[in-house]
């Protein structure tokens, strides 16, 4: 009995540890700055949207959202397309060729962005892609490709060989087998992979930090870093920015909780 209550107490305590900082941020963002400094922990009195309005007035917020959306959607879509093509070929080749390409991509899992950041920075500058959102997309696609290939190959290997063989005896070409059979059957793996890539790419700091410097090209995490410099003492506005940048992800999480938890955990383990 005592054990049970100790357990409940710990769950409650941890819930508080998770929720308290988030609650603190939430109430602060809805307070006027003066009220915040008068009583940082108090309930917003009066409740105001002033901080959000200030952000939209003083910053090109919509553009930042657009930049992040463009980079994220482009990265996820291209990674899924290229990754599933490669995974399919690896599985269909099998044997030594399949093993070689699988090992080639698996080797990439060892090398994190942090190791590649200097040569990538130098290469992108040489190519003249610095400060182009499209350049950022292409580089991000390459960076996430090993993980995508790894996850999708693992799943496609489990697809029944007979289904594919039967299709190929029927005379269906590889393109048709890929599009009509392999892709639909891989839907669970593709959605898990998409969720994972979506979160990684929306939240990515390092690549944009290295490749983007122009004001109009900032993605949301970079924009937040810039706001921190601009709103040094204006915490409430900065926190409104934190909430805005996380809002799309939070809304998706609310509705697709199970996919998020499954997809991100699968991605983390495989990576």
């Amino acid at each position: 009995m005592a054990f049970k209550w100790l357990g409940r107490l710990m769950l409650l305590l941890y819930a508080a540890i998770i929720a308290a900082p988030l609650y603190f941020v939430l109430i602060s963002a809805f307070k006027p700055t003066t009220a915040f400094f008068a009583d940082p922990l108090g309930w917003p009195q009066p409740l105001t949207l002033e901080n959000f309005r200030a952000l939209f007035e003083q910053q090109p917020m919509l553009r930042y959202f657009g930049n992040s959306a463009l980079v994220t959607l482009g990265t996820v879509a291209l990674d899924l397309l290229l990754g599933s093509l490669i995974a399919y070929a690896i599985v269909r080749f099998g044997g030594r060729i399949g093993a070689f390409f699988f090992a080639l991509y698996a080797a990439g899992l060892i090398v994190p962005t942090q190791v590649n950041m200097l040569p990538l920075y130098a290469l992108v500058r040489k190519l003249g892609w610095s400060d182009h959102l499209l350049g950022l997309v292409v580089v991000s696609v390459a960076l996430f490709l090993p993980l995508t290939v790894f996850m999708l190959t693992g799943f496609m290997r489990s697809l029944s060989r007979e289904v594919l063989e039967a299709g190929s005896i029927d005379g269906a070409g590889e393109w048709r087998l890929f599009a009509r059979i392999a892709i639909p059957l891989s839907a669970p793996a593709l959605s898990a992979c998409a969720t994972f890539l979506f979160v990684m790419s929306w939240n990515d700091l390092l690549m944009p930090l290295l490749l983007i410097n122009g004001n109009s090209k900032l993605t949301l995490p970079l924009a937040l870093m810039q706001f921190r410099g601009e709103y040094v003492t204006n915490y409430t506005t900065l926190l409104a920015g934190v909430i805005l940048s996380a809002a799309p992800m939070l809304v998706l999480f609310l509705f697709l909780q199970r996919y998020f938890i499954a997809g991100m955990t699968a991605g983390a383990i495989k990576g």
Partner: protein
Amino acid sequence: MKNNRLKHKRVLWLFLLPGTLLYLFLFAYPTLSGLFYSFTDWDSVSPSYNMVGLDNYKDSFDSLVFRKTLLNNVKFMLSVVIVQTVVSLVLALLLSRNTRTRVFLRALYFLPAILSSVSVGLIWSFVYDPTIGMLNLGLRGAGLDGLAQNWIGDRRIALYAIAAVQVWAHAGQMMIVFIAGLQAIPGELYESARIDGGSRFQLFRKITWPLLAPSSAIVIAYTTIQSFKAFDLIFVMTDGGPNNATEILSTYIYHTAFGNYEFGLASAGSMIFLVVLAILTYLQFKALRTDRAF
């Protein structure tokens, strides 16, 4: 028939082509050119550079800052791995059954994992603020003034304060891995052991712990590598300061290349970083392979 199959296979090369070209050009080639830069004295700005052999590696290991950086990496990694594994395991044990409250709590604990590390870093810089931060205000409100700290401004505790944030952000995710492992343990094992009069602790030690080994291996391996290559949180919260107290390899590489314009030296740092990661990954594969579950 055979001919037909061969033709099929030839088409598969086209499937591999676009992604692999991209990967070789923007992933494999940069890694190799990083190795090349590490033998030069390039400053990232001038058009020319000299080959300096292994000097950058020698200078790295001779440098006090670099050695401190490596030590910080180990401290950060060990604290995150130990605390995160214990926290996520305890949470998983308490939440392994599927009830409504438990499913809700799992989602709440998982929530920080979907936030960007920039957001998490900003949120916690704010919570840790010595004067208007929630943590110190809370401690003072509870009459515990003595415990109030300059959490990320004090070089003795800053690294651990950030390690705590890392755990806050990712323990929920690791909890899910443990829950999946727990739910795969057949319930009959517990029932028969309970009939034989096993105590709660004995059940854990004799059944849960051994059968959970594959999940523990995953959590520990993943957390080790993830914490070793941390960058964002430290970059956002302290940027390596105060006085290099939170400088770790990734931020050191960034500062050396873009702050001090020592691109060659920083590249040597990257290669050392890569070697350590390769060793850690090798150990991870070995640990996971030995478990029958894989």
